[in-house]
Structure formats: C-alpha cells, structure tokens
C-alpha cells in the first residue's frame, strides 16, 4: 500500500515539494493537501501585477484543479488543519475531516505582520498577502480616494504602485530613511523615490505610524511627529512572520519559525517543514527562490535521494513594478575589506554597484538596468575570482573578457550549471536537456516542462535565447507575437496596459511602452487608435491620421483612386423617396456605376474625393446617413421578409433587424461586423455566416455567433435561444462589446471565437447575467458618446475640409 503524505498548506513551497515528488517517483505516496484559502495553488509573488491590472488571477494559477485531479492529489481547499495527533498520526481539519499520515509536511507559510497601533482593526485596514487582500484593495480603489501604505519595502511599494494604477491617491509611509533598505543602498533608493514621485506617489521616509484614525472605518493616519494623513484605506506591508500557530500547539520546536535541520526535518518524527514557516540555521526566508530550493530538496529526500540537503541560500530580489528595473543580491553593506565598483548614468537613471571582497562579488545593487543580475548572482554563488574581468565587470556579461554584445554568444558561453531561473533553481543544462529530449520549441513549453521563467518571468529572455541557441534555425520567435515591428508587446498586453496604466493617447502609449519607432507604423497606429477609443469612448480624441483612408474620409477607396458611397438602409429597408434621392444623386454627379451589395444596400461607384461632401449632403437631405461600408465597424443587418409578408415567417424579422441596426450603427469594432435576422429556419437572410446571426423560431429567437462568409467560410456556433426582441438586443449588444473589448485589431469574430473558445463566450454572455448586462450597458454608453453620422459635419463643410480639396492646382 502507498504511504499517506499530508501537506498542510497549498502554497508555493508546499506544491513545489509535491511537484518534485511527482517528478521523482509519482507512485510512492497518496497525497492529500489542505489549504486555508478556497483556491487552487497560485503564484503569490505575482499578486502585484494582478493588483495593477497587468495580469488576471487566472494567469497566475500555477496548478489548476485539473492538475490535482490528474495527479490523484486530494485537495481540501478552504479547509484549514486545526489539530494533529502525533501519536495516532492523524490530522484534523476545521470541517471535522480526519486524515491519517505516514509523513506530514508543514507548509503553512507566513502571516503579515500587524503593527500594534490603535485602530489596526478598523474597517479599511488591509494587508497584502493573498488574493482576498487584492480583491479588497481593488474594491476600495473603485471608489477612488486616498490610500496610505505603511511600509516602503518590496511588497509595500508594489501595493502602492498597484493602487495608484487603480486611480487612488497614494502615500507611502516608511519607518527607515531609505526605501527597501534591506535590498537597496541609499543611491538606488534615491533614484527609486524620484521615479515613484514622478509617477505621482508621495513618499514619506523616517515616518513612524502612531495611530490609525477612524470611527468604525478608516478616516486617516497619525504619525508620531503629529502629522495626520487623510485616507480611506490603509495597507500594512511592514513584513511577514512565519505562521507557527499550529506547529506550536503540536509541540514542535519553534524559534522564529518551525526549526528544521538540513533535511528539513522538524523536532517530531515524520514531520517536515518547508517554506516561509521554517527557521533553518537561524535564518528565515521570505523570497521565492530559497523556498523552492527547500521544496526541491525535501521532495528529493522524501523520494529516497540520500544526498539532498539544504545549506541555506543566496537570495536576490527584483521589484515587480512595470518600468522600474531594480535588482539586488547578497551583502552590499560594504565595510572594511570590501571594495566598490560603481557605475552611474544620470541621464538614463542607471546605477550599478558591485561590492567585492577578496576579488569575489559579495553583493550587487542594480537600478535602471538589471539585465545582468543573474550573471552576478551566479558568480557570487560560485565564488568566481573576478580579477581578470574587473575592468569591464560593471558593464555586464556582454562585455566580459572584451567580447562584443551578442546576447546569444553570452548565453552559449554560460556553464552548464549556470542558474537561469533563480526562482525555481533551474540551470542551463536542465533547460537544454528538456528542449532536446522533448522537442520543445516555445517558451511556454519550456515553462511547462521545467518551470523556468514560470514564476516571476524575469528570466524569460534568457530562456528564449537558450531556445534560439539550442534549436538554431528551428526556433521561431517568442510565444507572444508582437503587434508589429515597432514593439515587443503583443496586442493583448497593450490593451490591458492601456487600461491598467490609464494611458489616454497614442504618443503616451508609445512613450510608456517604449515603442522603437518615433510614431509607429500603418499597422500599430490604427490598432492603438481603436484600443484607446474602445477603452475611453467618452473622452478619447480620435486620431484621424491613424485611420486608414476609408475611415478617414468615410468612403471606400477603389483601385483607380475614386471612392464608392453606400447610404445606410436600416434592416435593408428603403422607400421611394430614398430611391428617388439616390437616382437624383447618380444623375447630378454622373456616377458611373450603381450596384446592389451582398448586405442589401446600394453602392455608388466612381465618385471622386472632391465630390464626396456634395454627394453626402444630398443623401443627408433625403434622411440617409453613412452606411459605414468602409469601416471596421457595424456594417449591415440583413433581413428576410419575415412574418410581415412571408407565409413561412414566424417572427417580424424586418422589425428585429431594424432595431438591431438602430442600436449598433456607427459603432467601431476590431474588424467589420455583420449581422442578419432570418424570420424562420429556412434562413433566407443567411444568418449562419454572420458575425451575429438571429434565426426566428415559433417560440422566440435562436442566436448564433462567429460566422464568416469570406475566404474561409465558417458557419456560426449556436449560442442560445431567447424569447423576446429585448433579449435579442441585450445579447447582441453584450456580444459586440465582448468582441470589442477582447479581440485583437483586424481579428474577425470567427477567428476570435475559435481562439478564445465558444465556452468562454457562452460563460460571459449566457451564463453570467449580471456580466452580460454590464457589457450591454458599456456598449450603450459607448454608442451614447460615439454614434453619429460622420457624413453630416463633412457635408456641411465643418470638418476635415483639407481631405476633400487639393492643396493647390497648378496649370
């Protein structure tokens, strides 16, 4: 029979241990995991990007519930262990569940330190430790206002930047004179304070909190020098302490944490401990790399590796704030017997300091350019004598030994046991072996197989270079396809960052995200213009010069440079007056060709650019508006005759189509968007090859999505059936808004639905009623701001006249 292994704690250290056990000998144990949080195992160090909006919770899950199931691990999430019977070898959970163990692992992690000041229990005082804290902060940030973060260390600063990104006015209160004093020296701290202040944060150093003020709810904070700060949210991020409550009750030896030996054994037989709850050789750890190292060693030792032993760790840290590159490692306090090498570039805001002792690196602080952090740490761990490299050491690995800055050559030159992923302790040979033995070709695959770059992601560049070096020509680009040659960012990241960082204009996006071209190209500019318009419909000022010619002049350019004009006919309906006006326009401007389109409209071809405003003026006079046949926008709603006329019709398709088109016309979308309404399942309006199709049946309307009649014909996927016209409108609006917010520019709904999956669309539009109503409301709000006939102003000569007149005519 298998041995029973029980893990108390579903966090990163505990699960790293389990992963190692599964890797070494998956059949040795029956594994049961208890977690106090009602969640799967997620990447706690990535809570900061979730708070700032740069990542979602789903993206930081390390092991999904399927993983537990697939590996036959029993997970009790949300059920904390409250008692242990060492004699009977059982654990008891809060729910009353009792489970026997042969081996037991404490991975209870740590608790945030709460400073004992008056008011610490008020509503509005939160810590920054788990997903619940993040949810609380995000909820508080929704109503805006002021926040005070107590603690200017790693966590406190990440919380502060995150809250600022969510629109709050943030002050950081720090007891010491330098921020992140355990990781940074004064000079780097100064640069960091300047950077944070330039982002609108306030930083108070040497400030000691005396009390948190408020009656039931936080209203302010008082410092011991008498100053008070108004605020509605206080985040305590002053540090963590090992969570030893249960271990103490059970009678394990406790110092600052649960005391363990080099094999991570506690004072009781068959009970082990890993992670932040541990005290090892007098040291406690709060950074991910040593925790993972412990997990790896315990996993190996529990599967029979006699050599596995933990000897302590060199730690390095990196601040996870987008655009701030801070890195430190080792001991950089300096002092007798040490030498400093310092490099400063004030204009670029770069500061590097290496602390040497006996020709070896003892500590490193990097600010503004932390690319070589891993290299210095490796030399620190290996105790490399740097006297030969000394002249160029501070310039980084690319210049080591006088060789030139070829990153691939540098990676190739790394030793096999050089550590690439500090978080997970993965060295070069692990990755190269995984690539060659498993035929890996992408960063994601390397992540999946080795965990390299799966935690903080800081080494993903190095891993990609390793892929390139190992595969040679077989390696193609990174996993996230950049938007275009002007940036390394992919579409999805750019969209998320526009919202997260509150960016309001194309130049701002290019500046903040470090575009490599001065003003983009014809590929990224229209995309950025759309993303900004979609994010800020009420306030964004459309950049005409970033639109393609068709959308700039609201007509379709043809191969001879003339344009075609399509007036809107809602639901494909027209009448004598409109047709007469169109006929008059054709005569008056000698329009050479008139055609009925596939979308049930009339297209007037061969109009010169100079004629456009006059043509529009006549069409406007007859009550017609732009048909947007030229735009990445709602094109047409095609209808059949429906129950009004057709003997088979079950619902009034024409009326439904007109209402849909009235609601949606003039909306901008990632690509063109077409709809159709058929009055019965004979489907004469061809609704099943539209972006959104409605087919009426006796009892209501069947809705389907993601159809396309283009090069690759795709039939729609059935979404759901609804009963009323009002529901059709709500579902259509919500679906369009979801597409508007999530699809990449120039991605039609068909590939979009295939990419994100119909399940995703169903979950958002059908299953989540409040979510659907919010999407629909956002769609209507956008329409409120942007639905207007672009022809009108131009026909009256009050907008963009320069587009329709030559600069000069010379004989």
């Amino acid at each position, binding site marked *: 029979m298998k041995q029973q292994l029980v893990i108390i704690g579903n966090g990163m250290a505990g699960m790293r241990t389990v992963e190692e056990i599964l890797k070494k000998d998956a059949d040795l144990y029956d594994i049961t995991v208890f977690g106090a949080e009602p969640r799967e195992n997620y990447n706690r160090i990535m809570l900061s990007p979730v708070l700032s909006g740069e990542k979602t919770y789903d993206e930081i899950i390390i092991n999904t519930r399927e993983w537990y199931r697939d590996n036959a691990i029993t997970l009790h999430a949300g059920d904390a262990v409250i008692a242990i019977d060492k004699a009977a070898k059982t654990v008891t959970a809060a729910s009353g569940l009792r489970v026997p163990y042969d081996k037991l692992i404490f991975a209870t992690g740590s608790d945030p330190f709460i400073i004992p000041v008056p008011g610490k229990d008020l509503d509005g005082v939160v810590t920054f430790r788990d997903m619940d804290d993040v949810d609380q902060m995000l909820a508080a940030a929704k109503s805006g206002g002021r926040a005070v973060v107590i603690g200017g260390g790693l966590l406190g600063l990440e919380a502060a930047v995150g809250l600022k990104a969510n629109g709050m006015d943030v002050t950081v209160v720090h007891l010491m004179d330098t921020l992140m004093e355990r990781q940074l020296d004064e000079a780097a701290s100064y640069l960091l304070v300047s950077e944070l202040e330039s982002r609108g944060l306030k930083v108070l150093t040497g400030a000691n909190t005396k009390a948190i003020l408020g009656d039931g709810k936080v209203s302010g904070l008082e410092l011991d020098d008498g100053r008070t700060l108004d605020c509605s949210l206080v985040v305590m991020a002053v540090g963590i302490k090992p969570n030893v409550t249960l271990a103490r009750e059970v009678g394990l030896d406790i110092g600052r944490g649960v005391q363990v030996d080099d094999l991570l054994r506690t004072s009781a037989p068959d009970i082990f401990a890993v992670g932040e709850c541990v005290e090892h050789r007098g040291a406690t750890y709060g950074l991910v790399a040593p925790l993972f190292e412990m997990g790896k060693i315990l996993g190996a030792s529990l599967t029979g590796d006699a050599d596995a032993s933990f000897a302590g760790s060199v730690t390095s840290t990196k601040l996870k704030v987008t655009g701030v590159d801070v890195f430190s490692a080792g001991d950089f306090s300096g002092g007798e017997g040490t030498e400093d090498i310092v490099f400063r570039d004030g204009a670029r805001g770069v500061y590097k300091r290496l602390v040497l002792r006996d020709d070896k690196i003892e500590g490193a602080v990097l600010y503004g350019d932390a690319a070589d952090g891993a290299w210095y740490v490796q030399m620190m761990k290996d105790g490399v004598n740097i006297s030969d490299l000394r002249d160029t050491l501070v310039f980084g690995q690319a210049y080591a030994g006088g060789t030139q800055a070829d990153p691939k050559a540098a990676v190739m030159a790394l030793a096999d046991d050089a550590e690439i992923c500090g978080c997970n302790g993965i060295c070069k040979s692990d990755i190269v072996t995984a690539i060659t033995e498993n035929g890996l070709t992408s960063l994601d695959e390397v992540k999946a197989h080795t965990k390299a770059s799966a935690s903080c992601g800081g080494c993903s560049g190095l891993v990609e270079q390793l892929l390139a070096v190992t595969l040679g020509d077989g390696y193609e680009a990174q996993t996230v396809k950049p938007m275009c040659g002007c940036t390394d960012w992919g579409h999805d990241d750019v969209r998320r960052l526009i919202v997260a960082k509150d960016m309001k204009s194309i130049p701002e996006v290019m500046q903040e995200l470090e575009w490599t071209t*001065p*003003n983009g190209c*014809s590929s990224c500019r229209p995309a950025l213009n759309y993303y900004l318009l979609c994010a800020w419909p009420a306030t964004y000022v459309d950049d*005409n010069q970033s639109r393609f010619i068709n959308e*700039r002049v609201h007509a379709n350019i043809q*191969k001879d440079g003339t344009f075609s004009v399509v007036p809107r006919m809602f639901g494909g309906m027209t009448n004598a007056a409109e047709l007469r006006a169109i006929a008059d326009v054709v005569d008056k401007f000698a329009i050479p060709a008139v055609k009925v389109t596939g979308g049930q409209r009339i297209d007037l071809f061969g109009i010169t650019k100079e004629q456009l405003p006059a043509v529009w003026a006549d069409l406007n006079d007859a009550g017609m508006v732009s048909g947007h046949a030229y735009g990445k926008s709602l094109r047409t709603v095609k209808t059949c005759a429906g129950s009004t006329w057709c003997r088979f019709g079950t619902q009034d398709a024409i009326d439904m189509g007109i209402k849909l088109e009235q609601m949606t016309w003039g909306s901008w979308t990632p690509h063109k968007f077409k709809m159709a309404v058929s009055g019965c399942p004979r489907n004469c309006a061809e609704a099943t090859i539209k972006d959104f199709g409605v087919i009426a049946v006796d009892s209501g309307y069947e809705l389907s999505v993601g159809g396309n009649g283009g090069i690759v014909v795709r039939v729609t996927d059935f979404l759901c059936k609804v009963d009323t016209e009002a529901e059709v409108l709500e579902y259509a609006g919500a679906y369009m808004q979801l597409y508007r917010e999530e699809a990449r520019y120039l991605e039609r709904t068909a590939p979009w639905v295939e990419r994100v999956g119909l399940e995703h669309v169903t979950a958002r539009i059908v299953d989540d009623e409040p979510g659907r109503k919010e999407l629909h409301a956002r769609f209507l709000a956008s329409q409120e701001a942007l639905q207007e006939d672009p022809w009108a102003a131009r026909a009256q000569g009050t907008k963009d006249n320069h587009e329709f007149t030559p*600069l000069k005519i*010379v004989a």
Partner: protein
Amino acid sequence: MWMEIGTISNIPKLGARVVKSAGGDIAVFRTADDEIFALYDSCPHNGGALSQGIVHGKAVACPLHNWNIDLVTGDVLGPDNGCSRTIAVSVNDEMIRLQIPDVKATGTNG
C-alpha cells in the same frame, strides 16, 4: 520651376495633401517633426494614391496594398521593390515651394 503651393499648417501632421499639376498629381507629406516631402502621387506597385496613405516616420504606407515608400528617396522599403519619383521641396518661413517639372517624365525611375 519652383512654385509656392501652401504653408505647412495647410497639411495635417502625419498627413498629406495633393497638388494637381499638368504632369500628374503630386502628394505633399508632413511628418511629425514638420518636415515636408513630395512624391508623385502614385505607388510603384499599382498606382495607388500615396497621398491617401498613413504617414509614419519618414515613410508612407500605400492605402491599396500597404507597400511602404521612403519619403526621402521615393524607394520602396523592403521586402518589395520599386521607386516613386520625388519632387524637390524647399520650405521658407512656413511657405512650401515645389520644383515642379514642366512635363512628367515617367511614373517611376526605379
């Protein structure tokens, strides 16, 4: 023959206007830094009106098939090949002057 054709402010930033001449339409471009360039308004690929394209850096993307043309030299930027004919420009105190040939020689010189 040098001719005054208008001022910088007559052309939108990152945009273009057309000058109609006996030898054919001329596209006059304005970059983000207010530099002015002029080309015959015809893409070497299929004759698309370059004046209708998106201006970026010192290049314009043809509206028909997104070929990119260097505004300084008129050369097509890789991977495609070809050249649009340039027109000499001088700017003095906001006023733009073009050296317009009496008769257009050919559409391309590449």
